[in-house]
């Protein structure tokens, strides 16, 4: 188990989140505190250095963090994605080398897949990974790497003679250049970066899984894990927005009438309650499927993430309507969550990609 309650930790930093967003960074000491408390890669088994959290407990952690700051939740997401990929598809040697360090936060991970010419279609990546004399030479440019400014190692999706490969590239290797990204719509404190690998060489043992399996298994495992933690983060985000809107509606009186006594406001709150409850229910279902090793967990996670992200966006939007100008203020959590929620509908599978996938799953319902 982790030593500190994630809800208590999240509450303790809640007053700081707007400042992180404004300054564009979750502070380094907060990252360290998250790691020290055991919140990174917390679902790794104890033997691998983790806290052994099950999917449901990991989900609650992400909801706690997502209800305070999407960038803080993103830290847990990206570390969890890379740890999951190494845990699932690393050799015993790779697992021993990377997993305890990832769980302790001594190594921060970045997930480098998107490129100028490859995003939703990751089979189109052009970053190359060429084996040569016991090493692998990596060349290419990756975009929108969460916590890329401070990552110690990147899980890079590349192509090797036309086959997808996943390779771990340490940030300190010569030829690695990190370009900070600032001012993006949401997740502003998540230290995003574009990263260039200019003939960076790494030992051959940094390759994860054989060539050909880098996308279909390694990166797919990372993305599946990412969808799950993002989905739960959206639950937390939506619940905070609903709580804030309900408080405002109950407390604000205009002309002797509480906001909550206007039918239009009640309707906004009611729809949000339905959205929040549905998102949490689907995330709990995904957690149960994952707990059981059920093959349907992949589909269940796509569905949970799609609904949770959309519902979070809708609930944040309605919370803004209820709060009015107060939700538009510079330091308004609702305004920040509104911006973050838009990003949730894009990362780890944009809505439209998820809809295609869900459509495929829907065909399984044919009589």
């Amino acid at each position, binding site marked *: 188990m982790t030593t500190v309650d994630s809800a208590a930790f999240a509450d303790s930093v809640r007053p700081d989140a707007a400042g992180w967003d404004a300054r564009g960074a979750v502070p380094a000491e907060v990252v360290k505190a998250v790691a020290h408390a055991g919140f990174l890669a917390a679902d790794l088994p104890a033997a691998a250095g983790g806290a052994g959290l099950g999917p449901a407990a990991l989900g609650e952690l992400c909801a706690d963090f997502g209800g305070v700051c999407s960038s803080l939740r993103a830290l847990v997401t990206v570390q969890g994605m890379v740890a999951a990929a190494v845990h699932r598809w690393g050799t015993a040697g790779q697992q021993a080398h990377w997993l305890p360090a990832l769980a302790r936060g001594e190594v921060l991970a970045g997930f480098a897949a998107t490129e100028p010419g490859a995003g939703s279609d990751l089979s189109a990546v052009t970053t190359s990974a060429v084996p040569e004399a016991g090493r692998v030479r990596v060349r290419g440019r990756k975009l929108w790497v969460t916590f890329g400014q401070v990552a110690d190692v990147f899980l890079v999706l590349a192509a090797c003679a036309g086959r997808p490969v996943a390779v771990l590239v340490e940030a300190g290797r010569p030829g690695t250049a990190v370009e900070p990204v600032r001012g993006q719509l949401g997740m502003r404190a998540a230290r995003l970066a574009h990263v260039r690998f200019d003939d960076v060489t790494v030992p051959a043992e940094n390759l994860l899984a054989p060539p050909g399996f880098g996308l279909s*298994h390694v990166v*797919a495992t990372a993305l599946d894990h990412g969808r799950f933690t993002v989905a739960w983060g959206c639950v937390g985000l939506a619940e905070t927005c609903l709580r804030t809107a309900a408080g405002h509606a109950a407390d604000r009186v205009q002309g002797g009438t509480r906001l909550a006594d206007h039918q239009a406001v009640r309707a906004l709150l009611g729809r949000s309650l339905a959205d929040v409850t549905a998102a949490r229910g689907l995330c709990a279902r995904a957690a149960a499927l994952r707990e059981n090793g*059920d093959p349907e967990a992949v589909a269940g996670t796509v569905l949970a993430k799609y609904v949770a992200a959309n519902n979070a966006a809708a609930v944040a939007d309605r919370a803004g309507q209820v709060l009015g100008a107060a939700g538009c203020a510079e330091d308004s959590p609702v305004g920040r969550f509104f911006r973050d929620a838009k990003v949730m509908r894009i990362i780890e599978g944009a809505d439209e990609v998820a809809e295609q996938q869900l459509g495929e799953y829907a065909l399984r319902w044919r009589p």
Partner: protein
Amino acid sequence: MAGQQPVGAEPTAETILAELSGFFATATAGHTPGPDEDYFALGLVNSLLALELVAYVERRYGIEVGVEDLDLDNFRTMNRVAGFVLRKRSAGIR
């Protein structure tokens, strides 16, 4: 999807093949590949279904698929998967 519970009696190549056919029939809305057809080459398996296939054989047949098993020769056709499952089970890696 049918057949997701752990298998009871010791499966034969024929029963595994029949179950995999059922898996693909459902997953691909009827575009079931032949026993020796490469469903990756046919474009029937995206990365989500690839992960689902791994989870299916692990859960259904009580085996663990590790990185050392990631060889397309183990996974590219239903007959190959059936052979892989039987080898893993006979090796006692459950």
